[in-house]
């Protein structure tokens, strides 16, 4: 296709407009967490970290942050164990009906509207007599993020020669040795990538968590609650912090993703020197 300046230029302008309108509010929140505004103009002389200091005084927020990190780590660990076993199972008999069914079960919570997932779990836990708290949130997040880890792990398993397991057994390894020496080392990068991505998802998850958190709120849920009481500049500071952390996570995921792709190329033997 030949490039056409008369199309490219307007296209670029539209793209710019879209990006500016998307990012402007975020930029605004960022600025407002440091400066105050008067009559639609940022007053550059009013730089202060006072809103951040207020955040530190708020014990509930500290608790929420801790809850978020705790739920994220627990859910990622559980999801990694669950998704890896499922992926190995599906890989070993990809055409069986039970494998198809297992895939549906894993993908469903990811594809359903979160409100449905959250509500169903809430009803289930109530019937089962499980009180809402860290445990219930963790279960919800585990279900939600398993699909991501599963997909990434399965992709790598598929790239590995099917014969690797047979080769290991053929050379005298037991099933456990085969898993430890052959499969697991090849899943390190996919697990790291999937784990980071899953953690980022868990950290931001709000809807399912709303249904499942009792008094143990996570950071996004706490933020949501604060907004209902009234909009204070502390919220700007909080959002900026969450945003910063999310960006960090995203960068980490992107880096891990790239290294994962590199190691996958090594695995399938394409990266000859």
């Amino acid at each position, binding site marked *: 296709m030949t490039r056409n300046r008369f199309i490219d230029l307007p296209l670029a302008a539209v793209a710019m407009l879209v990006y500016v309108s998307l990012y402007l509010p975020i930029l605004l929140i960022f600025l407002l967490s440091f400066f105050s505004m008067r009559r639609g103009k940022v007053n550059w002389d009013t730089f202060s970290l006072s809103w951040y200091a207020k955040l530190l005084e708020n014990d509930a927020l500290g608790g929420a942050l801790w809850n978020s990190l705790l739920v994220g780590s627990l859910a990622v660990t559980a999801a990694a164990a669950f998704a890896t076993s499922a992926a190995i199972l599906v890989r070993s008999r990809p055409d069986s009906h039970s494998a198809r069914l297992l895939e549906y079960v894993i993908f469903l919570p990811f594809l359903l509207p979160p409100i449905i997932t959250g509500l169903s779990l809430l009803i289930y836990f109530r019937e089962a007599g499980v009180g809402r708290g860290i445990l219930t949130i963790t279960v919800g997040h585990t279900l939600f993020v398993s699909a991501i880890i599963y997909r990434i792990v399965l992709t790598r398993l598929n790239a590995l020669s099917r*014969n*690797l397991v*047979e*080769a*290991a057994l*053929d050379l*005298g390894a037991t099933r456990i040795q085969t898993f430890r020496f052959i499969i697991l080392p090849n899943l390190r990068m996919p697990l790291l990538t999937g784990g980071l991505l899953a953690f980022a998802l868990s950290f931001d998850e709000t809807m399912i968590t709303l249904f499942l958190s009792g008094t143990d709120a996570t950071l996004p849920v706490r933020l949501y609650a604060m907004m209902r009481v009234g909009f204070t500049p502390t919220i700007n500071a909080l959002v900026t912090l969450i945003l910063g952390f999310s960006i960090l996570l995203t960068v980490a995921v992107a880096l891990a993703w790239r290294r994962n792709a590199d190691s996958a190329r090594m695995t399938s033997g394409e*990266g000859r*020197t």
Partner: protein
Amino acid sequence: MDAPDTDSRHEVAGDRTPLLRIRGLGVRFQDFEAIRPLDLDVLNGEFLTVLGPSGSGKTTLLRTIAGFQQPTAGRIEFDGRDIADVPINRRPFNTVFQDYALFPHLTVRENVAFGLRVRGIARATRDARVEDALGIVELEDLGDRYPAQLSGGQQQRTALARAMICEPRLILLDEPLAALDATLRRQMQKFLKVVQRRSGITFVFVTHDQSEAITVSDRICVMRSGSIEQIGTPRDLYYRPRSRFVAAFFGASNILEPCRIESTGEDTTMVSTPFGTIRVDGPPPRVREGLALAVRPEALVPAAGDACNRIECEVVSVSFVGSETITELEHSRTRHVLTMKTRSDPSTRQPVVGSRLEVGFDAAACALVKGARE
């Protein structure tokens, strides 16, 4: 169904004892019979090649011996004992896979050491044996590379060293040279043969390339749709094919059919064919019905007044392909087409297309085989 082919005349090369005795072995996938019950002896220390077209069940046979595939009938005896209950990791057999299946996260050295490592062999012993194995396959200098940093031939040799390190009684190789280019392939054929002779380990080697099979094997087992068509030495199969299928597979592409036996003597048989009566040397055929006569293209010689079998033909086409000249001939009476392959020679004239030509062949240069209807 045909009874499994067990003609001990061709099966036993020398007086070696069988390492594996396979009896009535069958493998079925749902309603598809990948291996029809067959008998096969693998002799101690031999280089046995399983040869056959795609889908004939070669890989399935190999996987069943290795233990990856459960047989649905029959048994495999190793050193006189049934090994049905011996799991893969306890069988003293090792496999070289078609795609090598090298562990991508381990170096060449670690790959080769794997079999010893999982057996808990002490580090010092392990290292010494790995160096020995790397020496045999000439990879001493590449021990620290990863598989992705090796050429196809080097990967192949790593896989071989890895399979040999545990001193198995049997090495199974599934088309290990298929991914290599022609030159490297020939080198590796020689190399495999040498390694096999020196180590004395029995090799069962799968290929669908008949010239490769002839080059490397002590014996060849030809498979066709899940059954063994014929087993024998390369010379046996080349000069004494027993079926039209084997004859064609080994390049005896001139099939004279139908044949009727006129008379049999001690070592010659007179056969009536559409081309006239032909004399065939060799032991008399075991069956007298449904026979065909296979003649190799290079056995035909032009204007051979002294040959005992002669056929009057018309030249249809002549193609010069370098060291050889290939002539298509049509039998004057029946319109059957024959192919003749002669050594190219600058001093003799090529046959002229459209001219008559009498071609002859020796009584020892043809074989009576089972025909198309079996």
